[in-house]
């Protein structure tokens, strides 16, 4: 019975969706990403996400990368629970003063080589929270940033593109 339910569900979603214009681009990106990750790091890519005071909007889109439409893990990318297992640190939020130390400690716990991606407009320089008594001036004011992804929040495709861009830069550097 359970199988029937799922077959139905999946078919329901697969057969009658309205057109998805970016599907091809999305798959191409995911494949390119996986290949880059293997070439650069010789294996899959481990990502640790840290919310440094975001509004939670960016987290929702990072989450969406794991849904069946994007299914990031299928290409060998995984979100890991410990910074000690991570290659990439995804940081969201302007970095609140109350999160500064936690972010620094997470960064320091990561092994080299490591990359940092600041995700979202407010992660760049504080964005709309810039100048607040409670915020630092973005992620790069606390830890070195390799790449910033604009958007409020950046959508999953933009996030995939960002991971790819980082790997290209990493490949050149390495």
């Amino acid at each position: 019975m359970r199988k029937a339910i799922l077959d139905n569900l999946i078919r329901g979603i697969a057969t009658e969706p309205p057109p998805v214009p970016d599907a091809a681009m999305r798959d191409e990106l995911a494949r390119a990403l996986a290949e880059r990750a293997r070439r650069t790091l010789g294996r899959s890519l481990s990502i640790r996400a840290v919310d440094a005071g975001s509004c939670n909007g960016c987290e929702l889109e990072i989450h969406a990368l794991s849904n069946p439409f994007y299914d990031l893990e299928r290409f060998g990318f995984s979100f890991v629970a410990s910074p000690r297992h991570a290659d990439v640190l995804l940081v969201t939020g302007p970095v609140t003063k109350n999160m500064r130390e936690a972010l620094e400690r997470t960064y320091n716990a990561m092994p080299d080589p490591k990359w940092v991606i600041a995700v979202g407009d407010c992660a760049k320089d504080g964005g709309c929270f810039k100048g607040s008594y409670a915020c630092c001036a973005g992620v790069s004011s606390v830890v070195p940033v390799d790449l910033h992804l604009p958007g409020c929040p950046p959508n999953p495709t933009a996030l995939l593109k960002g991971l790819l861009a980082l790997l290209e830069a990493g490949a050149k550097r390495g």
Partner: protein
Amino acid sequence: MSQLLSQIASTKMMAHHRPWPRAAVNAEGWRFAADQLAAGRWVLVGLWGERHAVHMAVRDEAANESAVLSFAAADGRFPSVARLHPPALRLERTIQDLFGLIAEDAPDGRPWLDHGRWGMSAPLGTHGPANAARYPFLPVEGDSLTEIAVGPVHAGIIEPGFFRFTTNGEAVVRLEQRFGYTHKGLENLMAGATLARGIDLAGRACGDSTVAYSYAFARAAEEALEVNVPPRAVWLRALMAELERMANHFGDFGAICNDAGFALMLAQCSAVRERVLRTSDTAFGHRMMRDCLAVGGVARDLAAEGITAIHALLDETGRALPRLKELYDNTASLQDRTVSTGIVTAALAKQYAAGGYVGRASGRSFDARQAPSYAPYDRLRFEVPVRQAGDADARVWIRIEEIEQSRALIRQILDHLPAGDIRAELRLPGEAREGVALVEGFRGDVFAWLRVNADGTLARAHLRDPSWFQWPLLEAAIENNIVADFPLCNKSFNCAYSGTDL
């Protein structure tokens, strides 16, 4: 004068506060209100400060009446409400942190948002020297107790917060939460801002509720300025709010089951959630409909292709939901985890006036769309599902039933959507004016209060997330549950961090 206010011995009515009345009260009146709250006759809607005053929004639910009471904290002190009514506690600690006003005889004088890292204390008040960073957790004594500290960075991709568990073997004997990690100083940024920037910031208070927050902010500002919002905009806002509710409820449904070890449901529900987001994108130009509302109306109109997309979404969710329900209902291993886990008693839900699925799963039927209600919900047909079990299972079912209601609401809105303008012109108020609004977000009622200056800028704005009255219930609900059930229990609440830290 309102029935509610007439019960207070000495009040002075304040002009230009809409739609609820606001009255200045003396210490006796303030204490009387705290008594009413403690006795369960009134409900605490909000408690917030400004430089030299504290304000309290209360509701008499039986009479469907609401009011704001203000106390001039002339010597920097006000009588503690939490002393009589515990749900006020964290709000009072916040007032103390932000404004430096002291709640006299408060049961807990520890800071809440202030971690001693802002370089100053009372940033919205007297600007004192920074407080100490050390935070004394509540003492725990007893044999064979273990403490487990979790956070502020968590294993998953979630917001930061700190949880200190005291356990006896597997069982949690106490959970103490500590938050404030995502405090961005939002209300301070709003002070002096234009209304346009104010609504931008409101939409970034709590990412998953961007529509609900900008909706509450817009309505409060429109009340203050007495703006007539064009009918089409009134209906489009409700459409956005129901899409947001559906997206979040689907997301939660899957995530709760995932934390109960049933990843299959997460895969299914997150796919449906993605469809809702894409539909919102097609309809309003943003997956989460951020910045789609404006003071005076909406910033984006709904085009024909959006209507087609939403109809397709209704068909699709109509097919998916019965199957997901059946899958949930017939998976014994899942039910085994959710049924009787993390029970919130009806008494506690009532005392804390818990909104949203937390309240409604524990017998509290309040829904701001129904009462005090607001347009266009006063003209729409819908039911507010209520359950009594108070466990994680009941919180799942409330979400499922609310998705069904949202689908029905969306259909009605599309059927009756008026044509016409989508945004009213704003006029300068010419004098200071105040407005208040309550909007039902997916998590519960979002409260907004603001004062607009004569020149149209914001003097002060306050936003109160429903989670203020839900987080403390999680502390109670987890008691005597096993530690391993915490993630599941926590997800069934899905309280906001940024929304409460601001």
